[in-house]
C-alpha cells in the first residue's frame, strides 16, 4: 500500500469503528469492546508506518476534488510532513491507551457503547485534523471534535456539574470558532485556496492582504480550542467528564489541535508581528495564571486541567517566538505525560473514592494500594516539573532555549519583546509548575490519618496502560531531541546550558519550597477532619468518579476549593489563594459581562413575545371566535327557523331577479 492509502486509512478506521459501535452497541454488546480498541490500535500502527515511511523527508501531498465548490475549491487533501506524522502517532498512542483504559474504567457503565464510539469518532476527527491538507476539511474535524467533546464531557449527565460543563465547553469553544471560521474564509479569499501548501506559498510570496486580521481571527479559534486565556475557562469545568475523556481530549489531543494548527500555519502568523506579540502575551498570561490557579485547586483533576492550560501556554509561547519544532516537541512529550497523569489520577480517584486532595491528604497508605499509579505518576510529575532527565525537561528547555535565542537576538523570526515575555513567564511558570506538582504528589501520596479505603485491585487494563505511557514520559525527551530536528524544521532542539541551569534551578526551588511549606502545614491535617468518600466502593471507577464529582460541592462548599488549612498551597499563595482557587474570578466576570446582559435581553424578548406579540395573535384569533360563536348560536336545531331563513333568502333573491330583469 502506498503511504497515501495508509494515511487515508488512519482517520478512516476509527470512524468506521465509531459507526459500527453506534450501530451494534445495543444489539451485539460483545463486539463493542473489540470495535472500540482494535480500529484505534490499527490506526496507531498505520500512523507509525506512515511516520516511518515519511521519515522527515519531503511532505506527502495528495488531493482529490470531489465536486466543484465555487470560486475557492475545497479538496480532500492530505499534507503529511514530519509534524503531522509524529503528532498522528501521539494521537494514536494516547487514543489506544485511553480506549484500553476505558474498558476497565467504565466496566459496568450502561452507556459504554456510545461512549466508546464517541471516543473513536473523536480520535478519527483529530487524526483528520492532523493529516488534512485542506483547511475546510480540517475545520470539519475541528468541529466534530467540538461536538464529541460536548457529549463526552456530559457523559455523567445525571449530575448538574456535568451538564453545565458540557454546555460551557461547547459554547466557549464555539465562541472562538466563529471568528476562526471568518478567519479561514478571509484567508482563503486572500490566498485563493484552502490548501495549506498553497496558503503557505501565498504567505511566502507576500500576497496576503490582511495577515494581521486573519492571524488574530484565527488566534481566537485557537484560544478557544487550546484553552488559552481568555477562553480557557471551559477546560477546568470539563473535568466533570470521565477521566479517560479528560486524558484524551483535554490533555493530549483536542486542546493540542489549536497549537498544532498554528504550527502548521506558522509562517502566516510570522507575517504579522502584532499577532506574534498578542500570541506571546496570551501565552504568558495563560501559563502564569493557570499555574497559580493550579496551586490552589482541591480537585486533583482540576489541578491537572490548569496544568494542561499552562503547558499549552508553553507551546503557544514557543510558537510566539517562531519555533514550531520546540512547540510540537513539547506537544508530544506533554501529550504522553499528561495522558499518563490523568489516567493515573483516574486510578487514584477510584482507589481513594474521592477527587479531593484535601481528603486524600487524610489517608494513609494510598500509595501502597496503587503502586503502579504511584510510580508512574511520580515519573509523570517529574516530567511535568521539567526535572532532568525526564522528557518534559528536554521539551521545556527547547521552548526556553528558543525564547532565550530570540532575546539575545539570534533570530529575526520573532520580535524580541515576544522573546522576553515568553522567557520570563516561562521561568515563573517553571517555579509554579514544580510547586504544584510537588503539592499534588505530597497531598496524594504522603497523606496521614485513617487507612485509605479498600476499593479492591485495579483492573489490569488500567495499570498496564500507565506503564506503557510511562516509557515515553521517562525517555522520549532524551532520545528525541537529537532525532526530532530531522523531522521538523531542522532547528536544534538540544538544551542550552543557561536555560537548563536556570530552568532546573527554579524548578528545584519551587519543589523544595513547597516541601517545606508542606512540612509546616501537614501537622494540621490530623486536627481538621475533612473529606467525603464515594458511597459505592465496589462500583467501577466511573461510578466512583461520578459520585466524587457530585459530592464535591455539597461536601466542601465549592467545586474547586476545600477549606483545608493543611494545604501547602494556601500557605504559599497567601491572600491570593482564594482568588486563584476561583480561577481569578474570570467566570464571575464573564457572567457579569456577557451572561447577565444576554439573559436580560432574552427575558426582554420573552416579555415582548408573551405580552406584545401574543396579544396581537390572541386578538386575531378572538374575532373569528366571536363570529363563530354568533354563527353557532344560529344553529338552534329548529327546522322551522332554518326554512324561514331559506325562504326569506329566496324571496329576496326572487325580488332582486325580477327587479334586474325588468331593468328597475
Amino acid at each position, binding site marked *: 500500500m502506498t503511504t497515501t492509502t495508509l494515511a487515508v486509512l488512519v482517520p478512516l478506521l476509527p470512524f468506521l469503528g465509531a459507526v459500527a459501535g453506534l450501530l451494534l452497541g445495543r444489539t451485539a454488546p460483545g463486539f463493542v469492546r473489540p470495535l472500540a480498541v482494535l480500529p484505534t490500535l490499527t490506526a496507531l500502527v498505520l500512523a507509525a508506518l506512515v511516520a516511518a515511511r515519511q521519515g522527515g523527508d519531503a511532505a506527502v501531498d495528495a488531493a482529490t476534488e470531489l465536486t466543484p465548490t465555487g470560486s475557492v475549491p475545497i479538496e480532500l487533501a492530505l499534507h503529511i510532513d514530519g509534524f503531522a506524522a509524529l503528532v498522528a502517532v501521539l494521537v494514536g498512542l494516547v487514543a489506544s491507551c485511553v480506549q484500553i483504559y476505558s474498558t476497565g474504567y467504565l466496566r459496568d457503565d450502561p452507556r459504554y457503547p456510545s461512549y466508546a464510539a464517541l471516543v473513536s469518532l473523536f480520535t478519527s476527527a483529530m487524526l483528520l485534523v492532523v493529516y488534512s491538507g485542506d483547511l475546510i476539511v480540517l475545520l470539519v474535524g475541528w468541529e466534530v471534535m467540538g461536538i464529541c467533546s460536548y457529549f463526552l464531557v456530559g457523559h455523567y449527565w445525571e449530575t448538574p456539574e456535568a451538564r453545565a460543563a458540557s454546555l460551557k465547553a461547547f459554547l466557549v469553544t464555539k465562541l472562538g470558532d466563529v471568528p476562526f471560521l471568518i478567519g479561514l474564509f478571509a484567508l482563503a479569499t486572500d490566498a485563493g485556496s484552502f490548501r495549506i501548501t498553497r496558503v503557505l506559498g501565498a504567505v511566502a510570496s507576500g500576497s496576503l492582504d490582511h495577515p494581521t486580521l486573519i492571524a488574530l481571527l484565527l488566534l481566537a479559534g485557537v484560544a478557544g480550542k487550546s484553552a488559552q486565556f481568555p477562553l480557557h475557562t471551559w477546560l477546568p469545568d470539563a473535568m466533570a467528564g470521565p477521566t479517560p475523556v479528560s486524558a484524551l481530549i483535554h490533555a493530549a489531543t483536542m486542546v493540542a489541535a489549536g497549537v498544532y494548527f498554528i504550527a502548521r500555519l506558522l509562517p502566516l502568523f510570522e507575517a504579522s508581528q502584532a499577532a506574534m506579540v498578542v500570541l506571546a502575551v496570551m501565552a504568558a498570561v495563560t501559563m502564569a495564571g493557570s499555574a497559580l490557579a493550579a496551586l490552589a485547586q482541591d480537585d486533583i483533576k482540576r489541578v491537572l486541567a490548569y496544568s494542561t492550560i499552562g503547558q499549552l501556554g508553553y507551546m503557544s509561547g514557543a510558537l510566539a517566538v517562531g519555533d514550531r519544532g520546540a512547540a510540537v516537541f513539547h506537544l508530544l512529550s506533554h501529550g504522553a505525560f499528561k495522558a499518563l497523569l490523568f489516567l493515573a489520577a483516574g486510578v487514584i480517584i477510584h482507589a481513594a473514592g474521592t477527587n479531593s486532595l484535601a481528603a486524600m491528604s487524610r489517608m494513609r497508605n494510598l500509595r501502597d494500594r496503587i503502586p503502579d499509579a504511584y510510580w508512574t505518576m511520580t515519573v509523570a510529575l517529574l516530567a511535568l516539573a521539567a526535572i532532568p532527565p525526564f522528557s518534559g525537561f528536554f521539551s521545556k528547555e527547547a521552548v526556553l532555549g528558543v525564547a532565550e535565542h530570540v532575546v539575545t537576538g539570534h533570530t529575526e523570526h520573532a520580535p524580541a519583546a515576544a522573546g522576553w515575555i515568553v522567557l520570563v513567564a516561562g521561568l515563573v511558570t517553571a517555579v509554579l509548575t514544580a510547586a504544584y506538582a510537588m503539592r499534588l504528589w505530597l497531598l496524594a501520596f504522603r497523606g496521614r490519618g485513617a487507612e485509605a479505603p479498600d476499593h479492591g485491585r485495579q483492573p489490569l487494563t488500567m495499570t498496564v496502560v500507565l506503564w506503557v505511557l510511562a516509557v515515553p514520559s521517562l525517555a522520549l525527551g532524551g532520545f528525541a531531541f537529537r532525532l526530532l530536528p530531522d523531522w521538523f524544521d531542522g532547528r536544534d532542539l538540544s538544551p542550552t546550558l543557561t536555560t537548563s541551569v536556570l530552568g532546573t534551578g527554579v524548578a528545584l526551588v519551587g519543589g523544595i519550597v513547597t516541601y517545606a511549606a508542606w512540612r509546616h502545614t501537614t501537622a494540621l491535617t490530623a486536627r481538621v477532619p475533612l473529606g467525603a468518600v464515594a458511597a459505592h466502593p465496589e462500583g467501577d471507577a466511573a461510578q466512583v468518579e461520578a459520585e466524587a464529582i457530585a459530592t464535591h460541592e455539597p461536601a466542601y462548599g465549592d467545586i474547586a476549593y476545600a477549606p483545608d488549612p493543611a494545604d501547602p498551597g494556601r500557605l504559599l499563595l497567601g491572600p491570593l489563594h482564594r482568588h486563584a482557587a476561583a480561577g481569578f474570578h474570570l467566570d464571575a466576570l464573564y457572567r457579569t459581562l456577557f451572561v447577565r446582559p444576554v439573559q436580560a435581553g432574552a427575558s426582554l424578548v420573552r416579555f415582548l413575545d408573551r405580552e406584545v406579540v401574543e396579544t396581537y395573535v390572541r386578538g386575531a384569533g378572538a374575532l373569528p371566535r366571536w363570529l363563530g360563536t354568533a354563527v353557532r348560536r344560529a344553529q338552534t336545531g*329548529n327546522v*322551522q*327557523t332554518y326554512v*324561514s331563513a331559506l*325562504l*326569506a333568502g*329566496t*324571496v329576496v333573491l*326572487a*325580488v332582486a331577479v*325580477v327587479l334586474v*330583469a*325588468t*331593468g328597475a
Partner: protein
Amino acid sequence: MTLAATVGILATGPIPITTAAADTHGFLSPTGVEIAFLLVGLVTFGAAIVTVTTRQLVHAALWLVVTLGGLAVEYLLLTAEFIAWVQVLIYVGSVVVLLLFGLMLTRAPIGRSPDADSGNRWAALTVAVASAAALVWVVVDAFRTTWIDLDGPAAGSTEATGASLFQNWVLPFEALSVLLLAALVGAIVLSRKAKAGAATTAESTSAARSEKDPRTEKGSRSEKEGTR
C-alpha cells in the same frame, strides 16, 4: 319592456291573439262566474287562514275541509269537473280523515291549546307576507290582461281528461301507481312497530314515563285530555 309584457310573452309564447282579445275585458265588468269565483275564493282563503291560525287542532282539520271544498268549487267554476270530484273524493274524503286519525293517534289535545304556534311565528308571518306580496305583485303584473274563455265545451270534462290521460300520460300514470305502491309499503313498514308497541305496551310505557320523568308531564296531560 315592462314586467307584464315579459311574463306575458313567457307565458303565452307564440299566441299573441289572446292578449289582443283580452284587451276588451276589464276588471270593472265581472261576469257572474267571476263573482262566484271571487266569493268562493274569499271563503276558501278565509278558511285557509283559520286553518293555519286556530288554536284548536281538530278545528284546524275541519277548516281544512272547508278550504279544500272551496277549492273543489273553484275547479268546477273553472270547468275542470273531473279534478273537482277527485279533489272532493281524495282530499275531503280521505286525506282529512287521515289527518284526523293522525291527530288522534298523537293524542292531540281537544279544545284550545295555547302552544299551537311555535316561537317562530313572527318570522313566519314576515316571510309569508313578504312572499305573498312578491307573488301577488308579479302575478297581477303579468296576467292583468289575460282572459280565460270559459264558454264552449268544458276543458276539464271527464271525457277530455280521460282521453288525454290515457293517450298521452299512460307511462307516468303507471309509474305513479308504482310510487303509490311504494308509499303503501313504506307506510306499513314505518308504522308496523308502532302497532306492535302500541298494542301491548302503550299504556304501560306512557304510565312509566310519566312516573319516571317530569319532562313528559305535558305528554301525559294531553293523554288525559284525549281520554276526557
